[in-house]
């Protein structure tokens, strides 16, 4: 009888150990010195460096800017509110061709579409006509005169620094991508109003003031 009880206990232990199928630990590594990097990798813990006496600060050196980010620093003080001084800024990129439009649309759908809607009607899946979790109505980019009159520069600054409840998208989109998205929104607004996209590039301030983006900027 004694042996039977030993067998029973063993079997019971096996059953119990096989019970939970949630794996909360990663398991054992074969040759951990080849598995885990000794060099500092992207998600290395900076405290380990500090413990070894290495000074590490994740912030960029004060005063340095990214090579592509120069345009943001034209109106350095204009980082909150309505971005009035930046409204004079013009989109430095030429109008988008078909391929670039596809790319700009992709960027818009990833980053903006969840709130502002795939049709730019301010009714994305997060708002869902007031039924979604997002309580504030996102801006109606096409169909609201307020946003159709908004200048490209103000749009760019709104994307860069955020506006009202919208956060900054500086970490999501490079300045070039932000200008592309601004181009895309403006093109959609023109399309809805039945205007054609001007053929010439609006590249600099000497461009004729008759094109539609210039009038929108005022």
């Amino acid at each position, binding site marked *: 009888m004694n*042996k*039977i009880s030993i*067998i*029973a206990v063993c*079997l*019971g232990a096996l*059953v*119990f150990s*096989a*019970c939970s*199928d*949630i*794996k*909360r*630990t*990663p*398991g*054992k*590594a*074969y*040759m951990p010195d*080849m*598995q*885990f*990097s*000794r060099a500092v990798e*992207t*998600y290395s813990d900076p405290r380990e460096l500090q413990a070894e006496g290495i000074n590490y600060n994740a912030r960029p050196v004060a005063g340095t800017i990214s090579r592509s980010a120069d345009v943001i620093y034209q109106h350095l003080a204009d980082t909150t509110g*309505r971005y009035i001084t930046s409204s004079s800024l013009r989109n430095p990129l030429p109008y988008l061709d078909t391929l670039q439009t596809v790319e700009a649309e992709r960027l818009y*759908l*990833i*980053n903006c*579409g*969840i709130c502002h809607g795939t049709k730019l009607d*301010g009714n994305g*899946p*997060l708002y869902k*006509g*007031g039924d*979604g*979790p*997002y*309580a*504030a*109505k*996102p*801006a*109606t980019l096409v169909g*609201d005169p*307020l946003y159709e009159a908004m200048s490209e520069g103000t749009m760019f600054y709104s994307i860069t620094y955020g506006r*009202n*409840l*919208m*956060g*900054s*998208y500086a*970490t*999501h989109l490079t300045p070039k991508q932000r200008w592309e998205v601004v181009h895309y929104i403006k093109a959609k607004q023109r399309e809805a109003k039945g205007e054609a996209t001007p053929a010439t590039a609006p590249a600099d301030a000497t461009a004729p003031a008759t094109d539609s983006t210039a009038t929108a900027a005022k």
Partner: protein
Amino acid sequence: MIAYRSIVKKIILSVLLLTVVCFDKQVLAQDGKALFQQNCASCHAVGKDLTGPKLAGIEERVPDKKLLYAWIRNNQAVLATGNKYFTDLYNQWNKTAMNLFPNLTDEEIAAMITYVNTEAAKATAKPAPGDTSAATQAQQSDNSLLFGILTLILAIIVLVLMQVNSNLKRLSDEKDGIPSYEPVPFYRNKAYIALFAVILFIVGGYYTIQGAIGLGRSKDYQPEQPIYYSHKVHAGTNQINCLYCHGGAQEGKHANIPSLNTCMNCHMAINEYAGEKLYREDGTEVNGTEEIQKLYSYTGWDPDQKKYVNEPKPIEWVKIHNLPDHVYFNHAQHVNAGKVACQTCHGEVQEMGEVYQFTDLSMGWCVNCHRETKVQFTDNKFYSIYEKFHNDLKNGSMDSVTVESIGGTECQKCHY
């Protein structure tokens, strides 16, 4: 003739007037909801402070209807008159200027306020959502224990029956006069020992090999994270694109864990969870609103004051997918050039409450995929230099190009 003309004129005019009046009525009845969403909802909600204060109970706070209407149309003019309530309100909300709405008619404003009042009444009348689905969740996980106990009982019965059988045999042998040997206990019975050794060898060998193969692999690894972040809610229900948070996947080697400002893009406004109930893997219920509060404690955001008041600290998420140091893997190559969907390697993350490792990330798995996957060769700039393959595809001597045929199984692609 002239008399006719005047009658016709009158009729036309009255018809016009009627349509205008009707249309106006329609505007009035045409839900205040639409007007509210068009004009107010980007800054105000009924029961929640957003960019501006919540609007529930607005008529109690501003009983003077004329003043309220004047404020809604042109708040700057009201501020200029030095009204105390509105000046205080303006200062309290960090002097955020409200937009001007000079074109709203009295009826439109009334319709919107009626909408606000009905919504506010609805919100107070709504009872707390009952919990019904909790019981069903708990029942499912206990089956394996039940089966284990059943197996155990059956095993004991088999052993007892075997004992009884041998005893009965001995008794019948004694009766028949066949001399019975002293019974050999089963642990000294050679047949039993041999059988046991073979079984031990097979089972032990199986587990040893499986364990050895599993070293360094962590399929199904599902750690508990510092915040219960549900991909099911974010990427599933709310349809947020993977690349919204993990934009690094198209830029470089790492897909990146989003920084806290990405969370706050939405969670500045979304401070409570009201969707369907959430459960951890062990069946305990998750309070979504509390988890959002945890995010606020990390970012230092004060939802009452609507600004960052405390020093932020990073969330130490537990990394799930780890490749050994001697393997090079680049997300951008797979996402941009390869056009591989995230779900191919990570599973249906948009269905996961807690994320687990979907594949074992073994070398066999990598190589197998490289052998089988057909490269999207046409309309893909990245592969435009493979002239021979393009020609072969064109004249039909090759029907598809796999990753292997462009060097995807060379050692040096991943190990260097």
